[in-house]
């Protein structure tokens, strides 16, 4: 497994996309922190970047990578290796390289400008988002044989999590405006890793005071130990479950 993992990581680093991803993240994060005179504002802009770019790059890069290495996978399968080992190595390879890229590109500037728990939380959130979207992309790739369709599905999934889901929530808040729906909305939002990450970080910033009563309800939940445990569990489930299903499919897949 270590050997395959090493090959995968080397291969990813060699194709330079990840290197330019690091450079891109680093320049933008540094730029944002330098542009904003208020550090907290800088962190907010970085948050938007993390919530927007990290899932997008993770999901598309991984999907394309899986399709492109289909021959490599076939070659590996001809060797006496377990399918599980191969698939997990791919997952680890992709996620480790993307996480390292994120930690170098965004983590270092954050730690320079914001070296406290909120900054560390941002980094943790980014790491989780990378993991989750790599795992979702594996699921998308394993279920569709056609490359174009697979990438299309990956993009649609990203759109769903980044935009459509929020639209649905907005719709729900208007439909159920007459009821005390804060807790319900909180529960629904936590079904989306991007929303959950955004709220968790936002509540740690000064701006949370703008969220008034709603913010207070969320703060009470996310500030408590149960809240933290539940949201961490949800984030972990978000990459374990797609990974499990993709693995199950890959094991029985007729390549």
């Amino acid at each position: 497994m270590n050997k395959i993992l090493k090959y995968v990581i080397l291969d990813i680093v060699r194709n330079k996309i990840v290197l330019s991803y690091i450079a891109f993240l680093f320049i933008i994060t540094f730029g944002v922190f330098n542009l904003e005179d208020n550090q907290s504002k800088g962190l907010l802009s970085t948050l938007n970047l993390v919530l927007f770019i990290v899932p997008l790059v993770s999901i598309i890069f991984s999907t394309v990578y899986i399709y492109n290495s289909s021959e490599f996978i076939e070659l590996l399968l001809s060797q006496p290796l377990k399918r599980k080992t191969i698939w997990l190595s791919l997952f680890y390879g992709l996620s480790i390289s993307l996480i390292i890229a994120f930690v170098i590109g965004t983590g270092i500037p954050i730690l320079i400008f914001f070296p406290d728990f909120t900054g560390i939380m941002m980094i943790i959130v980014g790491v989780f988002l990378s993991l989750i979207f790599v795992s979702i992309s594996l699921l998308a790739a394993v279920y569709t044989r056609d490359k174009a369709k697979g990438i299309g599905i990956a993009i649609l999934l990203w759109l769903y999590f980044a935009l459509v889901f929020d639209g649905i929530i907005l719709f729900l808040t208007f439909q159920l405006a007459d009821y005390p729906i804060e807790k319900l909305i909180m529960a629904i939002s936590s079904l989306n890793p991007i929303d959950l990450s955004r709220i968790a970080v936002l509540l740690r910033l000064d701006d949370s005071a703008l969220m008034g009563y709603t913010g207070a309800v969320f703060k009470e939940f996310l500030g408590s130990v149960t809240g933290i445990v539940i949201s961490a569990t949800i984030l972990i489930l978000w990459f374990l479950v797609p990974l499990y299903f993709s693995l199950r499919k890959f094991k029985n897949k007729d390549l």
Partner: protein
Amino acid sequence: MKPIIIRLIFFSILFSKSFTVFSKTIYAGKNQKIKSINQAISIATAYDSIIITEGKYFEKNIIINKPLVLIGKNFPLLDGEKKYEIVSIKSNEVIFTGFKLQNSGKATMTDPAAIKVYNSKKVIISGNIILNSYFGIYIQYGIDCKIKDNKIIAHGTDEQQIGNAIHCWKSDSLIISGNYTKGHRDGIYFEFVTNSVIWRNISKKNVRYGLHFMFSHNDSYISNVFENNGAGVAVMFTNNVKMYNNFFIYNWGDAAYGILLKEISDSYIVGNHFSSNTVGIYLEGVSRSVIEKNIFEKNGWALKIQASCMEANINFNNFIGNTFDVGTNGTLVMNNFNSNYWDKYEGYDLNRNGIGDVPYRPISLFSMIIEKNQPALILFRSIMVTLLDKSEKLIPSLTPENLKDEKPLTRKINL
């Protein structure tokens, strides 16, 4: 001519001398013949001066019931032992200056204060230090009184457990100037106080409001600093208030406002500085008022204007770095925005006269949405909201049509 002037000067000297002949100065203190302040007051006649020297005095309640001048030398300490009202002024023309007072009693029925003025005129309370008291300085039915340069500090944590630093009730023509208040319930409290001035005070870290202002017509407050108070400043049910050149800083929290205005009319808010407040100014039921030449900086909302406001003229202000510039709760707009500088303005100025050619709409779609629908705040700072706001800016459909600045300035106003 000359002899007349000389004669006048001569007579005026003679005249003023004659006063000092009739009034005397009494010394009281630990090393003096008269040991207690109460004793000094009882032997004094009207218009005498009492000078109290350094020391600690436990005199229970000191009642000043004749016109006297009380001067503390090197801040003699008057202690209320957490049981008594320390000084009660029940006479006109009392001057009380240079004392240190601490630990006034606490009672919700009688509201004891460190210094309380009852139905009196022309009282001057200046240069005192008041520590850990229930109420600091309390004026009821006072006319023409001055509260100057006092330092009033407590460490209140709960609204119910502590009184106000400077509390004025049913009074007229007061001057409150140069005081420093900290850690009380309200820094300065005005109820039914008219024709008064609040000038150059600093009100910090009070549990509730920095300044609390109700039914107090024709007052002005000028050049004060209200910083980091639990709920900022509230001005309610008042006509003709003038608020000039004040600083409202860091009143940050779920229910904190730079100023909360409720049922205000014919008032002026000019030249103030609102910085880092959750809401800079919250206006409800405000009519015929002018908000001009203020700086709104780094607030959550610079202005929250409820639809119940009428003829509020908001002109020549600088809006810089606020999360939301303006929020409102309805589509009816009867207020005017003109010639303000908005840092979020994205229009152009073809003839370079400093006035943007496209009107600016300070209300974002999302601030409309959350005003109607609080739980939607869960989408705060999400990507979809940013997109919605952008598209609404291009083609306004849901935000109030009339709420716009027709002549937005392209450069910051020098204020």
